[in-house]
């Protein structure tokens, strides 16, 4: 039912139950917010009204109303811009700032901070309140996420994201009153919890309370050490988001400029994680066919996403044998750099440093997993930095990114197909696998390589794909809450699938925790996904098993896919972990 109200003397009709904030937005009146975050498509709506920044005056109401969580009613008269409302907002921000470190200049979130932007917008020029300041220890325990509760403003977006969307539930508001802060269970260091390091909490944190572990300096050191041979690889999702860090439109494809920038930064070789993705498909498709032919357990689950891997290790230990044993593409590229490439070009693998540029925070943790290396001192990948960290490095080096001429990846580990590009978005890994599995199983060329039902932002996508005489039941999910739904259906026997793709981050890697901040605008994710498919269409080769450099790798070095050497280098194992 629709009701009528007025906001700032403008009469409007909106559905009953809508918040004042949303109603005001329908007539282009923006009320400032801070804790509020509505990511409808991800099924996240944080409207706990803890910050009181969005307050407005409602006629007949004594106190001010938080517009994010106050529903409209018929005949309501709202004023959003009165002196009282404006001063209250400013006071709220001043109070928040009175218990917030004044270290904006050195904060990793400087110029990307919602609190900072709000203080600027509201004209906060001095902080009239001097009082107690919270003092908490900074949690540097994990290899991926740094928690600085001193910068926490108790908006609880991270908690809502972790509980409602990811269903991991690492965070909770702990304590009461002024002492309240968002913490882990029993104040455990993050690395001792069930945290998957997906980094979606970082993606929605309005301040610098949650940040990725900054590893830029480690990269600078490697680049400046003449004894190191530094190889860099870039994930598919990076090239459709990096431009945002330099003011380019979301969805701008900057592959060539990115390669040029990396060459300017001084990397010895610039390889493409997409080569690793093509290898992943060869291995995963072979593994799937092997399971079908030998009566192995189905469905096969993709294992490219390290946050998803850690999720099932904690939450579904009884399903530990169904994910593919394939390492993730960047790990494959890392190990191939230190074996195949090193051997072919006569480079001492001990002298090679592999740096991965990832849209992901969990990859930092993944790279440090002890089983992902040939020996304890030779990890497959040495350093992982995020898209955000790379854009900072480029700025630090004084490179005019937008003026760079496009350049090409180095051979041979820089060659890739369209199948590898689509790895960067939800549905892509399965689509890439199907392009290869179809041709291998039927012996027929696949004419239309685009699998529309597997694309798009729906949380759970299902399709039945006929391949030869067999029908393949496929599911695609993104967001760990959706993954949980699917896995519970498998456990209960309610659903049967042959293959499932799971990516921890909503939207897939394009929405990764290490990407430029979307600040709540999910159209940015759509634009990145479209760019991924555009990049795929621009490739001559769109099936992984057609990548000539990959075929040469198998012929000269690996031998049979899913064979002995492949197992030694390209496959891994999983560990049961405690659920906290």
């Amino acid at each position: 039912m629709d009701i009528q109200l007025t906001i700032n003397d403008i009469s409007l009709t909106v559905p009953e139950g809508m918040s004042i904030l949303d109603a005001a937005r329908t007539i282009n009146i923006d009320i400032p917010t801070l804790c509020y975050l509505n990511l409808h498509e991800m099924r996240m709506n944080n409207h706990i009204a803890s910050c009181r920044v969005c307050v407005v005056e409602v006629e007949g109401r004594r106190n001010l109303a938080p517009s994010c969580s106050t529903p409209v009613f018929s005949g309501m008269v709202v004023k959003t811009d009165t002196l009282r409302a404006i001063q209250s907002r400013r006071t709220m921000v001043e109070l928040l700032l009175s218990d917030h470190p004044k270290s904006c200049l050195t904060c990793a979130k400087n110029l990307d901070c919602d609190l900072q932007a709000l203080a600027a917008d509201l004209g906060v020029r001095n902080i009239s309140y001097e009082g107690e300041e919270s003092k908490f220890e900074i949690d540097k325990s994990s290899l991926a996420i740094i928690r600085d509760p001193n910068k926490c403003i108790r908006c609880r977006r991270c908690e809502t994201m972790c509980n409602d969307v990811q269903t991991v539930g690492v965070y909770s508001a702990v304590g009461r009153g002024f002492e309240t802060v968002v913490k882990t269970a029993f104040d455990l260091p993050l690395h001792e919890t069930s945290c998957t390091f997906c980094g979606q909490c970082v993606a929605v944190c309005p301040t610098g309370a949650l940040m990725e572990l900054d590893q830029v300096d480690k990269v600078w050191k490697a680049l400046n050490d003449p004894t190191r041979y530094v190889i860099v690889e870039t994930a598919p999702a990076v090239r459709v988001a990096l431009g945002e860090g330099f003011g380019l439109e979301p969805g701008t494809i900057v592959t060539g400029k990115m390669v040029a920038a990396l060459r300017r930064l001084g990397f010895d070789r610039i390889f493409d994680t997409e080569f690793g993705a093509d290898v992943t498909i060869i291995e995963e498709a072979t593994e799937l066919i092997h399971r079908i032919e030998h009566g192995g357990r189905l469905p096969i689950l993709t294992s490219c996403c390290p946050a998803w891997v850690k999720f099932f290790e904690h939450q579904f230990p009884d399903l530990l044998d169904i994910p593919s044993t394939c390492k993730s593409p960047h790990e494959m590229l890392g190990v191939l750099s230190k074996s195949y490439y090193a051997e072919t070009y006569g480079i001492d693998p001990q002298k090679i440093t592999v740096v991965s540029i990832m849209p992901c925070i969990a990859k930092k943790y993944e790279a440090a997993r002890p089983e992902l290396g040939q020996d304890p001192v030779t990890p497959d990948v040495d350093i992982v930095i995020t898209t955000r960290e790379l854009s900072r490095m480029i700025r630090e080096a004084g490179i005019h990114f937008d003026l760079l001429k496009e350049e090409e990846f180095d051979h041979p580990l820089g060659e890739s197909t369209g199948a590898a590009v689509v790895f960067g978005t939800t549905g892509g890994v399965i689509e890439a696998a199907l392009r290869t599995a179809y041709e291998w199983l039927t012996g027929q060329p696949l004419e239309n390589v685009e699998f529309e039902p597997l694309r798009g932002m729906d949380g759970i996508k299902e399709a039945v794909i006929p391949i030869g005489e067999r029908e393949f039941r496929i599911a695609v999910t993104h967001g760990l809450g959706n993954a949980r739904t699917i896995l519970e259906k498998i456990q209960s026997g309610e659903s049967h699938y042959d293959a499932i793709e799971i990516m921890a981050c909503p939207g897939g890697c394009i929405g990764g925790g290490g990407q430029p901040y979307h600040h709540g605008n999910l159209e940015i994710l759509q634009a990145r996904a479209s760019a991924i498919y555009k990049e795929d269409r621009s490739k001559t080769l769109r099936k992984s098993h057609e990548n000539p450099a990959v075929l040469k790798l198998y012929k000269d070095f690996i031998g049979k896919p899913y064979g002995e050497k492949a197992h030694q280098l390209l496959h891994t194992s999983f560990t049961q972990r405690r659920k906290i």
Partner: protein
Amino acid sequence: MCNNPLLKDPYQLLDNYIDNLPYKKENLIVILHHAQQLFGYLPDKVQWHIAQKLDIPSAKVYGVVSFYSFFTMKPRGQHVANVCMGTACFVRGSEKLQQEIENQLGIKTGQTTSDNSFSLDSVRCIGACGLAPVMTVDGKVHGRLESTEDINQVLDKYRTEARD
């Protein structure tokens, strides 16, 4: 701790209690109260056990326990004294009462004596304003505690019990 020798495994008792509840996740606070009765307090291990049993995140349990002052994560003394700091008691001098008890027991509010005989906490109004200032010991209300003498009398009673 529970003194009943029949109740060997408090975890088993807690599980039985939870199993018999019609709603489980919805009854977290009730379950925590019961667990505190069984264990005397709510250490991490008990909170974790409840989280696993209810299939909810441990952080959520911890958040709830840390919010309510009736829940304690530290072992408590044999007797638990709570001084009322509600408005009526406060204006009738409960702050002095609190200080006096702190002096007598040699601990601060929120602590437990080294011999484990007393824990001291504060509560907001318990609804006995006519008797202000009041404190409860093990749930029993003691009112009009205005002089050192009054306080001594009450504490002595429990001190004797503790020795027995």
